[in-house]
């Protein structure tokens, strides 16, 4: 038994608690569907897959490193300026993200525009700082940050998958691996102008609107809580 544990330890150099920090936010403690955090950006950028993926990466970066920074400083931050210090660290990291995107991925920068700044107010960042980083060691805070970032990212990707597919008929539009799945034109896999089965299909314009993201989120919550009964009535 202990030999199994030893070999497992060699494969996954993480304790059970650390694995929980990393994987819980993906389901049981999902920042969006359970903690009710990070909603605003989940609605705004999810009209297409590419900005959602970039946003998820940016947010994960900010949560992880602000968790790390605050956790390192946690015993030195004066009580009276606690919130301001947290915000300065967050704003600092977000500005770094913005300057970097503007220099190395300009088209994405233009698409995300005002929402990059809004990462500062993404409640997940502040929420995790208060709930975890202020009271826990740096490595674990960092992992908690990554875990929550991934949990947020997965929700974003699910929403934008449906919104882009049914709203525009494409996936990963804007990348070199764009998949034009269904639409009016010969460059689509299913060409509605010539296909006999799908001639009636037009893109669902509702999906393009942010309201659709709310509906999809409601559906995700419905699904998640019916599979995971302990989450019912939790929020």
């Amino acid at each position: 038994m202990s030999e199994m544990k030893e070999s497992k330890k060699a494969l996954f150099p993480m304790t059970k608690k650390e694995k929980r920090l990393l994987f819980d936010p993906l389901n049981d403690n999902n920042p969006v569907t359970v903690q009710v955090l990070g909603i605003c950006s989940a609605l705004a950028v999810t009209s297409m897959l590419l900005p959602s993926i970039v946003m998820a990466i940016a947010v994960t970066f900010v949560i992880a490193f602000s968790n790390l920074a605050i956790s390192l400083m946690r015993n030195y931050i004066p009580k009276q300026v606690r919130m301001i210090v947290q915000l300065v660290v967050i704003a600092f990291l977000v500005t770094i993200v913005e300057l970097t995107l503007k220099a190395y991925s300009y088209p994405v920068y233009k698409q995300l525009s005002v929402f990059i700044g809004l990462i500062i107010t993404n409640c997940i960042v502040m929420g995790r700082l208060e709930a975890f980083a202020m009271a826990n060691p740096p490595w674990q805070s960092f992992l908690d940050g990554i875990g929550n970032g991934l949990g947020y990212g997965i929700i974003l990707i699910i929403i934008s998958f449906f919104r882009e597919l049914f709203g525009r008929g494409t996936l990963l539009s804007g990348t070199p691996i764009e998949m034009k799945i269904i639409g009016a034109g010969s460059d689509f896999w299913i060409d509605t102008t010539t296909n006999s089965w799908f001639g009636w299909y037009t893109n669902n314009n509702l999906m393009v609107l942010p309201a659709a993201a709310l509906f999809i989120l409601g559906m995700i919550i419905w699904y998640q809580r019916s599979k995971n009964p302990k989450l019912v009535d939790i929020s």
Partner: protein
Amino acid sequence: MEEFLNIFIKSAFVENLVLSYFLGMCSYLAVSKTVKTASGLGLAVIFVLGITVPINWLINRYLLSENGILGMDLTFLRFILFIAVIASMVQLVEMVVEKVSPALYNSLGIFLPLITVNCAILGASLFMISREYDFSESVAFGLGGGFGWFLAIVAMAAIREKLKYSDIPAPLRGLGIAFIITGLMGMAFMGMMGIDPAIFFSGK
């Protein structure tokens, strides 16, 4: 005066921060369970927005822009300065509310300081910048936006209070149905998009 009212009405209804732009969702969904807490938070938001948007306008114009006192383009410090202003205002509001109405302070609990990270607050300041409002327009925008947020959260709270007596499937209860309602309200507000309130004033 007309321009002021125009922007006030536009930012409160036609371009409602919550229902048209979906900003400030987190506290909107979390605090909209009862009308009482919702209106308390809504009032606080009006106050914070009405003050931070004009102050941030002043900061942007006189400190950060190239024509400002410092004479350098410091716009990359925008996020940090804006958020510092917002955090200070919220701290102030928190202290005032605690003194003036301890009951409200207790019922709002953690959500009062959470106004600081309410995306609607920072978002409003950022919109003010990108739309290049002048000073009086930014005042109208701040107050109107806050008022719109107040209306939205109180309306939502009223609906959710009534919903308590409905027969909703268990997994959908609470947050799930709140999302769907917000989506429906958002769609309704989309119908108002593009209305220019000025038509009501000029009588055309």
